[in-house]
């Protein structure tokens, strides 16, 4: 059945979408349920051609609601599962993302962001879904969201998303954008044995001792999959450690929902990743992510050339947000600049953390991402 290698070790020239698909396969993903949508379609297309050759499953579902629901089912059946979409599909998935959070089903959702709202700009980049990633489904829960800025990171962070999702039993998002997804760059795929793979913590106690939602000290319950001999009851209703609904109990609701949040919040230091560039003495801190961060890095270098002490903080995990890194960088900063391809989303997080009155947002909508010059000019204007 297996006709091709899963991990295509070597140097490649690839698009971000294809790199993302290869990352998923390298991470051990053997189930993809999806629905075509620009600019994420190539992920599904590539997986559709690869899965039959490596003994995996590609299913094209009837819509995005079905796609994420199938992914949750496959995850519980025991496979690493993923779907990929863009804004309109991401909106449709939100209810089931809540279900995945509530039932603690590990899964990866790739959102290749385009311009919104609604159908918006299917072929142009955006960063307008980053708050939706955090707050999109109703109720309180935490998720993990990563932001790739290159083709290499589309590969690396997709693997990382699987590892984090499996570790914490949460939906993990790869929040890419149209440029990163469609751009072609060099990609190095390491040998399979050098790729760090994390698999979900399995139930290893005798079946009569197993409580499906009894957490360990890290707040994550070990996971038994369907058919492994463990009694299993999972529900989107508020449930106790047995998995049974307790919809009238304040105690059970408080304990469950707080744990869903705290398993991420208390482990945030282990999850959070950020790239720091020239921040040690920075008077101007630029906070940028995704493709915008690459223009921002050029802008910061240019500012340095012109004698402005600028630095770049690039959150790699958008959620949880690298709060401590930012707080430290902001201590001595006079000006904080947040260029985003939206009307001001992650800038709110920056304002909340730094409590600075000198946080400036540079919006860019409806075309190419910010150019280095645009960000540089903005730095010069705002930093006096």
């Amino acid at each position, binding site marked *: 059945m297996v006709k091709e290698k899963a991990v295509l070790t070597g140097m490649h020239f690839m698009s971000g979408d294809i790199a993302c698909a290869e990352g998923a396969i390298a991470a051990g993903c053997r189930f993809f349920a999806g629905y*075509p949508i620009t600019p994420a379609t190539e992920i599904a*297309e590539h997986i559709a*051609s690869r899965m039959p*050759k490596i003994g995996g499953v*590609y299913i*094209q579902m*009837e819509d995005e609601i079905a796609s994420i629901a199938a992914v949750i089912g496959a995850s519980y059946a025991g496979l690493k599962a993923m779907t990929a979409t863009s804004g309109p599909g991401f909106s449709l998935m939100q209810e089931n993302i809540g279900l995945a959070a509530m039932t603690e089903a590990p899964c990866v959702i790739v959102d290749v962001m385009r311009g919104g709202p609604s159908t918006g700009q299917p072929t142009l980049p955006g960063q307008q879904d980053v708050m939706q990633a955090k707050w999109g489904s109703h109720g309180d829960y935490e998720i993990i969201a990563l932001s790739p800025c290159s083709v290499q990171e589309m590969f690396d962070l997709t693997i990382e998303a699987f590892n984090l999702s499996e570790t914490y039993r949460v939906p993990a998002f790869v929040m890419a954008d149209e440029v990163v997804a469609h751009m072609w760059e060099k990609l190095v795929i390491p040998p399979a044995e050098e790729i760090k793979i994390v698999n979900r913590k399995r139930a290893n106690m005798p079946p009569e001792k197993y409580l499906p939602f009894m957490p360990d000290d890290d707040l994550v319950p070990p996971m038994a999959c369907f058919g492994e001999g463990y009694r299993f009851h999972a529900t989107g209703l508020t449930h106790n450690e047995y998995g049974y609904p307790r919809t009238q109990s304040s105690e059970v609701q408080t304990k469950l929902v707080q744990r869903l949040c705290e398993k991420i919040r208390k482990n945030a230091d282990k999850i959070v990743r950020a790239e720091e560039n020239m921040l040690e003495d920075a008077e101007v801190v630029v906070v940028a992510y995704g493709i915008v961060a690459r223009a921002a890095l050029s802008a910061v270098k240019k500012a340095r050339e012109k004698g402005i002490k600028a630095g770049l903080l690039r959150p790699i995990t958008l959620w949880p947000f690298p709060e401590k890194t930012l707080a430290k960088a902001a201590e001595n900063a006079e000006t904080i600049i947040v260029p985003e391809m939206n009307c001001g989303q992650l800038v709110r997080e920056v304002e909340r953390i730094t409590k600075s009155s000198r946080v400036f947002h540079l919006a860019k909508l409806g075309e190419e991402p910010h150019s280095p010059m645009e960000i540089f000019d903005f730095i010069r204007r705002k930093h006096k």
Partner: protein
Amino acid sequence: MQSEEWKFTAKDIAEKPDLFMSGHRACAGCAPATVMRLIMKAIRGPTIVTHATGCMEVVSTIYPYTSWAVPWLHTAFENAAANASGIEAALKIMKKKGKIKHEHVDVIAIAGDGGTYDIGIQALSGAVERGHDFLFVLYDNEAYMNTGIQRSGGTPLGASTTTSPAGTVIPGKLEPKKPIADIMVAHEIPYVATASPYYWRDLITKVRKGLEVEGPAFLHVFAPCPRGWRSDPAKSIELSRLAVETCVFPLWEAVNGEYQLSTPSKVLALAPQKKKPVKEYVAVQGRFRHLLTPKFEKMLEEIQRITDMRWQKLLKKCGIA
């Protein structure tokens, strides 16, 4: 309206102004664009069109132009029928209150196969169950062409698409086409029909019937796509004829649930020797190219078997054979 008003002769059609106008950006040989034009030749008065996301939505409304000479609304992918429900219900109450003077304002919802078979079927099923008086037109080019040829519930068995790629492991799509028009007949709505643009008068007549009938109507139109089917752009209309002649896409109407064959298919029912083998239809399309290799010839036989089986079933429903 009296039947003599819609003779739809070539002369009448030529004289009637186009409401789907030229200048759109459809590909060469795009049958769906022809279908849109023919549909709009059939309307009888004030008409509102609501259009799900899809090729025809995109190519007909490229800034700063529109091909639509009627009020036109682009909805999300999944909800053209729900959107039409809202329009129709609002018009109805406004008419009741005397705020609208027109005798009737027609509502047409248009969607491709993705927006009908797959993501759109929930809204469609709900709308016709509630009995809204509107016409739903499915232009079926048998895959998600707008995003680059991914399989849909309307993609036929054995067709190669980017998400059902024929290769070393699979012979193209593994599942047959969903019988969507029969599913709509099962909703017990007053009018369901299939049409194909080669038989243009039949198509226009069916659109008009769908508009005139009280209650929901569903029209399934066959619409070859040379880009997606890997077929000669000059042969799209010919393909729309071949599909009927091979019984891959028979033409019929179900009026209040009573099936009857339309003339082009009836001819084949009466003279079965005229029915062409599916291979003739398959051989001229790149999406089926792999079926002509020895490795996948069984799949071709299976396509013929399913086509014959469905044709026989249809004949029974029509009280023939």
